[in-house]
């Protein structure tokens, strides 16, 4: 069986643009939350989110011009811009910008999004209501379609292998990495650029999630304290935006070119809840089955898991996942650490699984686990170490990242030290 390893990473998050910049702030327990700046929030209930900070590139800011000139930016939604940026970081980190035809034919792209160009759809619809359909830009559709990150990235680097895009709500990023790894294992490609991107912080996005009663609403006076997974005072998730992209590579291919190897994609599991459109099944069976499937795929026992990057969105569902993990690990729960980095990044929806996969990979690289911040008063007792408020220096050989999405779609990805 072909093995798949991770050889490149790219991140655009509310904490920072860049992998090391984001990781440093994550380990320090910083929050990316603040008042929403992108639109007038006077009509919506929630006026805070975890936004990407734009600037000249210094101090971890996201420099739009570094990835796409102004002329091209007008033609794409922000989720595509973030996806392009994270992919650019990842392929450069992997030192994988080949020019020979065989390499280009054997490199594919699978970067998805949960919602896609929601901001563009909102703005274009408002403009059309005012000025009529003749004013709709020819770039509206190709600038809003979810698979256009994969399309844009393939055009930029000439990657002619499988070109695909996952759309599974908040499981998108994890499914993309898992599915892309399978394409390499099956022989469809030797290298895949995979991940997820999201940029849905707009009036219709906030209003829509508010209507689902999914967002935190009570912490307008202190947004940085709003995302508090497992805490008794949590009241919903805080929306984030950005992108995470990894370069996945067949192990022998990576070794042969002397690539830096971060970790192996050891296992991947998927499941469906078949229960409710927005709520997880109350017994957590869907998550339990996706984790179990990933363990089986990896050929590992539950006790092998050192770190779990939880889905943990800061909603009522946190404790359902927690119970599923306890059930999976049994007595081994006492020796594992589980944290929710959404306490710091917010919930990046379709990008969440991708950025959290990267955090799991970095936990293996640096033998340290990022904290769950704002966990002051745990909602339930658990034998699991939730790394409240402070990072954990500990052995991490195997890390599992969970992502669960609306529609009852679950994905678990296991990374292992090589």
């Amino acid at each position, binding site marked *: 069986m072909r093995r798949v390893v991770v050889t490149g990473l790219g991140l655009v998050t509310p904490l920072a643009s860049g992998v090391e910049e984001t990781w440093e702030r994550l380990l320090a327990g910083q929050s990316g939350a603040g008042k929403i700046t992108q639109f007038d929030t006077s009509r919506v209930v929630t006026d805070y989110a975890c936004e990407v900070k734009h600037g000249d590139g210094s101090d971890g800011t996201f420099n739009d011009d570094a990835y796409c000139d102004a*002329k091209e930016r007008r033609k794409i939604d922000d989720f595509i811009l973030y996806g392009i940026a994270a992919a650019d970081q990842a392929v450069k980190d992997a030192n994988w910008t080949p020019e020979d035809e065989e390499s280009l034919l054997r490199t594919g792209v699978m970067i998805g999004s949960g919602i896609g160009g929601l901001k563009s759809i909102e703005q274009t619809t408002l403009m059309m209501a005012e000025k009529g359909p003749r004013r709709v830009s*020819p770039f509206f559709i*190709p600038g809003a379609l979810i698979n256009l990150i994969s399309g844009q990235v393939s055009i930029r680097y000439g990657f002619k292998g499988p070109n695909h895009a996952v759309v599974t709500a908040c499981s998108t990023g994890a499914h993309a990495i898992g599915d892309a790894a399978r394409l390499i294992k099956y022989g469809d490609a030797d290298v895949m650029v995979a991940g997820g991107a999201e940029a849905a912080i707009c009036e219709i996005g906030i209003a829509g999630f508010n209507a689902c009663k999914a967002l935190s609403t009570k912490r307008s006076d202190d947004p940085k304290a709003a995302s508090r997974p497992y805490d008794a005072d949590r009241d919903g998730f805080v929306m984030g935006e950005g992108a995470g992209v990894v370069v996945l590579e067949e192990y022998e291919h990576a070794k042969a070119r002397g690539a830096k190897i971060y970790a192996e994609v050891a296992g991947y599991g998927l499941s469906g809840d078949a229960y409710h459109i927005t709520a997880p099944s109350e017994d957590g069976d869907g998550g339990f089955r996706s984790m179990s499937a990933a363990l089986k795929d990896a050929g590992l026992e539950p006790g092998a898991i050192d770190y779990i990057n939880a889905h943990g969105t800061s909603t009522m569902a946190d404790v359902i996942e927690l119970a599923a993990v306890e059930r999976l690990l049994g007595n081994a729960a006492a020796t594992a650490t589980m944290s929710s980095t959404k306490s710091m990044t917010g919930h990046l929806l379709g990008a969440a699984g991708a950025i959290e996969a990267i955090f799991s990979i970095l936990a293996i690289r640096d033998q340290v686990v990022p904290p769950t911040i704002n966990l002051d008063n745990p909602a339930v007792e658990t034998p699991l170490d939730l790394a409240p408020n402070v990072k954990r220096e500990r052995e991490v050989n195997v890390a599992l990242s969970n992502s669960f999405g609306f529609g009852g779609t679950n994905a678990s990805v296991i990374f292992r030290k090589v």
Partner: protein
Amino acid sequence: MSDVADRVKKIVVEHLGVEEDKVVENASFIDDLGADSLDTVELVMAFEEEFGIEIPDDAAETIQTFGDAVKFINDAA
């Protein structure tokens, strides 16, 4: 240069991201200024917006160069 030509040039420079001195009478949007078929659709829409005119699709197809655009708009106004 006429006011119309100045305004058309400004739109072309903005939308296609080209240097102003490249936008000459016979400059073809596609062959000389790097536009693709979608860019030309958007350019025509921008002309409509700027000058408050309607350019039918069959007429839009005849607007290939900067000079064509200025002439069409001058005739339409």
